[in-house]
């Protein structure tokens, strides 16, 4: 019996004249439904309890965003209500707009250069004949995905420090060394972050796109080959359309995360805890880093309220964008919709 029929049944009974009977019948229906689903409910219980304890109840603390929070209890006298002051700070301080600009700008760059590039790389990878060779490449490309930023930061020193690889090479070529952490290199950092971001995730994304291409029916390809289509023609007329939908969905999906960033990369690479130049830090500071700094950086005053306020804005914007993209995805392809 489907759910729909059951609901209709309830509705028809509502029209019955005796109120008591209706209530009883409704209650019985409800209990009946509960009983029928009891095993399912029991299976959901552990995670539901865990979620409620770890994620839902703590949401009460979002009220911190409207307070000048000092210490518990949450509704105690010491936490004065400042209402929207923390949000005003967000909207009126020019600094924050710079941070939002960094977050969105860098993410857009990663998405709009990265995603098509991934697709192109996957297309060309698909042209490899030898499966063993592809396998070897895949394995190598997968390595960076497995290295966490806490480890990769040390490698970044080895490359970008004053005695790092790049400067050693420049020295051999008789060129001026570059101090990557000085204010003068601020302009280089979007590129540096892009390259590191690519190092970390590009190989992995290519492998995923490649796997999607593998699902393409080989028959069409063979037929095209027999018809005398060149390689590039085959790629352009058969594989690209196949990949286009996947890429579009990927693009839209990644838009949902446009206000979030890979914290490890943005924290460790520009050496936020170290002595890199202020101008540089300012040019790469993203929202996640600011939230972390408001709570953890001894150089600026700890402010949990502001951190919560920024986090809340981040979540709301993320949610709105995600719902919007979900709506677009639904238009494009019913199957891929999220909710």
């Amino acid at each position, binding site marked *: 019996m489907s759910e729909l029929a059951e609901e209709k049944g309830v509705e028809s009974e509502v029209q019955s004249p005796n109120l008591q009977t209706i209530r009883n019948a409704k209650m019985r229906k409800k209990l009946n439904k509960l009983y029928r*689903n009891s*095993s399912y409910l029991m299976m959901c219980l552990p995670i539901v309890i*865990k979620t409620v304890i770890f*994620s839902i109840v*703590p949401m009460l603390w979002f009220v911190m965003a409207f307070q000048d929070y000092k210490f518990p209890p949450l509704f105690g006298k010491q936490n004065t209500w400042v209402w929207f002051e923390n949000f005003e700070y967000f909207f009126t301080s020019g600094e924050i707009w710079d941070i939002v600009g960094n977050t969105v700008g860098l993410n857009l760059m990663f998405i709009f250069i990265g995603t098509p590039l991934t697709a192109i790389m996957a297309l060309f990878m698909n042209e490899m*004949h030898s499966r063993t060779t592809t396998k070897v490449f895949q394995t190598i490309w997968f390595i960076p995905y497995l290295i966490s930023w806490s480890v990769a930061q040390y490698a970044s020193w*080895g490359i970008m420090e004053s005695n790092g690889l790049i400067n050693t090479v420049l020295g051999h070529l008789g060129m001026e060394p570059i101090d990557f952490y000085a204010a003068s290199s601020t302009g280089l950092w979007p590129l540096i972050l892009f390259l590191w971001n690519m*190092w970390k995730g590009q190989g992995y994304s290519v492998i995923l796109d490649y796997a999607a291409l593998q699902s393409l029916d080989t028959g069409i390809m063979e037929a095209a080959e027999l018809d005398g289509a060149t390689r590039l023609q085959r790629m352009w007329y058969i594989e690209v359309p196949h990949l286009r939908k996947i890429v579009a969905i990927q693009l839209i999906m990644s838009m949902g995360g446009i206000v979030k960033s890979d914290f490890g990369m943005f924290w460790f690479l520009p050496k936020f805890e170290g002595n890199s130049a202020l101008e540089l830090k300012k040019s790469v500071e993203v929202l996640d880093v600011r939230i972390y700094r408001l709570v953890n950086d001894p150089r600026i005053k700890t402010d*949990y309220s502001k951190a919560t306020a920024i986090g809340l804005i981040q979540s709301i914007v993320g949610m709105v964008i995600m719902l919007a993209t979900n709506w677009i995805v639904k238009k494009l392809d019913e199957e891929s919709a999220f*909710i």
Partner: protein
Amino acid sequence: MEEVLKTRKRIKITRFDVLNCLWMVLFSLYCLLPLCIMVSASFSSDATLSEYGYTLFPKKVTMDAYKFVFESGGLLLRSYLNSIIVTGAGTILNLFFSAMIAFPLSKYDFAYKHWITPLLLITMLFSPGLVPTYILITQFLDWKDTIWVLIIPQIGTTFNIILLRTFFSDIPREIGESAKIDGCSVFREFLTITMPLSMPALATCSVLMALSYWNDWGTPFLYIDQFNTDLYTVQYLMAKLEVQAKSWYENAGLMGENQNINSVIMATCIIGTLPIMFVFLYLQKYIVKGMTVGAVKG
């Protein structure tokens, strides 16, 4: 068809193939470069590093850093053990409970599905701040400096549940129904039919979960005391390696000169990363499989 395949195999190597191979090789080198630097630096001494700078291959090969790490790094071994325990136990618990909730959610006849899914999705969007989580864990649960804090909070990540739900709903409905007619309980259906049928899905999920447990460096930072070396994990050790390397030297009574801080850091990173990397590389096909489904469907 077979003939076609044969002709394809006989295709001679064109310029296109060479170029195609070339960029792949270049990109592979790009991926390996940071790792190379680390390996090379770990086999050098700090004196060499400051004289010649970092190079792709060590200028003067020395095993000093490794010797030092193995002599003073009982901590590294301990951290390894902890990481393995946390990853192992965490993955098993996480997988079991996530699958257990994903199973009803994949069922068409589960009436409360539309209550539970939004609950999970909300948690994905709104993560409560640091303060309430810290209060919960340190004061109500009293899990500070225990292994639970490394395992439990990660259980039941929405993403994994959705992934599993997608896999489970691909299992033909009839199988479940016929089992029900045979008088099989829901939980038994889950254990004896759904779970064995979705082994590949479970493998994917468990690898993803294991990876996220292994690479978690934020949780121990907050909840594991710096002196509680019994509960160090590899990632925690890596994140505070600079301080740690200095203190190893201090404990050995070697102040000032003759320190190889940089190479010791690199050596520890290599020892801490490489072995587990091979394990995950071996399992990568599961990740790829799962993520293809996950990326498109959820």
